[in-house]
């Protein structure tokens, strides 16, 4: 079943067409990697998908439902989660509080004001599980601002997973990570179950390892979609993206 469909999606900023008539179909459980040079419109595409931007034209379907008019938080409740290219984490909160924010986000518990947070054991168990998977449980009381870059990226991903999303949008998740960190990230991502991932990646090797399919974006246009082998062999992609040097 098609999990995510972007239909004739376009976004104009004044005179600039950042996303130009993009058509994308992503199946449930698929790992789709989006590659393209800087400024190709990849992040804009993500912003359109999760609702942070409204399209100038086109529609978006999520498991068959038209979500084009739905707000950011509505889409999150439906199961779309996202990480940011530059970590957007609450610097003054601890890792635990940050993850708890995520855990309670899609539950009515977030409106409960008559009982202390500490009494909601199941929220803490969920947070504990997510953090232990990433070896962050010991550091749970450390403030985000005191974490290393790599740790912050880990928290960023953990936060996106708190709502058990159906679709995870990852914006350049391995940017700035060491080879070791990148490796564990890739294994972690591949080990996830019951999830569809759309990943913006600059690292071609990572892209080829993660992807079931790759889509190539250039000047806001989708110039190719296919399996990693097909994309490797694609002439246009070669010229446009690799400058014909591969």
């Amino acid at each position: 079943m098609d999990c995510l469909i972007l239909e004739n999606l376009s976004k104009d900023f004044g005179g600039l067409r950042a996303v130009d008539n993009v058509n994308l179909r992503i199946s449930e459980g698929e790992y789709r990697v989006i590659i393209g040079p800087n400024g190709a419109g990849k992040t804009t595409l993500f912003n359109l998908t999760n609702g942070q931007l409204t399209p100038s034209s086109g529609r978006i379907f999520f498991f068959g439902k038209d979500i084009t008019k739905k707000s950011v938080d509505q889409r999150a409740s439906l199961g779309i989660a996202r990480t940011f290219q530059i970590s957007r984490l609450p610097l003054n909160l601890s890792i635990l509080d940050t993850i708890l924010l995520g855990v309670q986000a899609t539950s009515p518990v977030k409106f409960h004001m008559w009982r202390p947070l500490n009494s909601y054991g199941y929220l803490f168990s969920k947070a504990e599980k997510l953090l232990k998977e990433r070896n962050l449980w010991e550091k749970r009381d450390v403030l985000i601002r005191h974490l290393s870059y790599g740790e912050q990226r880990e928290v960023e991903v953990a936060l996106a997973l708190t709502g058990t999303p159906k679709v995870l949008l990852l914006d350049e998740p391995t940017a700035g990570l060491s080879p070791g960190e990148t490796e564990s990230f890739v294994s972690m991502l591949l080990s996830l179950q019951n999830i569809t991932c759309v990943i913006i990646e600059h690292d071609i090797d990572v892209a080829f390892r993660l992807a079931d399919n790759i889509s190539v974006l250039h000047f806001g246009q989708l110039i190719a979609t296919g399996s990693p082998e097909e994309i490797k062999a694609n002439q246009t992609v070669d010229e446009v993206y690799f400058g014909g040097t591969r």
Partner: protein
Amino acid sequence: MNLKPINIAIFIGATVLFLAIPLFASPYYVDLITKVLILSIFSASVNLLLGYTGLPSIGHAAFLGVAAYTVGILTTNGFQNFWSNSLLGIVSATLLAALFGLICVHTRGIRFLMITLALGEVIWGLVIKCRHITGGEDGIVGIKRPHHEFFWSLVGISNFYYFVCIVTIFTLFILYIIVRSPFGLSLVGIREDEERMLVLGYKVWLHKYLSFVLSGLFSGIAGVLWVYYNTYVGISSVGIMLSTNGLLMPILGGANFFLGPAIGAAVMTLVENIVSSLTTHWLMILGLLYIVVIVFVPNGILGGISDKLRGKV
């Protein structure tokens, strides 16, 4: 709940201490501390928006004042039931906050500040205009504290103090539960990054709105106490000065700390008391205090102490 024995001990100790104050302090100071307690509730209500949700309201006297005027108008028009008057006072403040919240909550930062200022001025102007109800610039005098309706008479300084003390402890306790609840955590998340919270799935406007209405409710409680404390209500109760002080007190004490507003209320009242006995230029000193705190000690007194304790100077 995080009920460490030491916390309980401190809480009980503090309560006992406060209740014992009339035993060893002169009536002048008991009266002053009564004022501090009422202002603590007010400044804590402002801080629910400022410190926890990240919304700076400079118009909160509107809610305190509306509650105060409601009680004042009812009392001087033959309605002597303390309970119903107080309840109506609090309800009126809450309703006003529910109304204003609809207008304010779509904004943040200085725009929110601007709008709360303007709305506060609307109420101020309304109060002056409707002088046949509110007494205009003269206000309403002769509001008597309940004498028979209560377990004990609230007429004396000490008696009223006990009442205010209990209400303050109770109110701050409720507020404490709120800020330590999941709702409270949501507010803090919104303060840090609103859009990020939307991406997580939070209905941010609803949280902000509820926070706004709650803070109006608590300001209403302060307003009821305020009118009975003064036995008078005038335009200063809805004035810009009370509103701006409402914002300064938490900043002075430390907006990121639960007791920051209370500390701020205490320090501000103390300084005002000392300074106005020495000079008539209280306004100038207050202005300078405002500037000094915001420029040099933006984390407030508790913030400064906390930084020192953690080794940062």
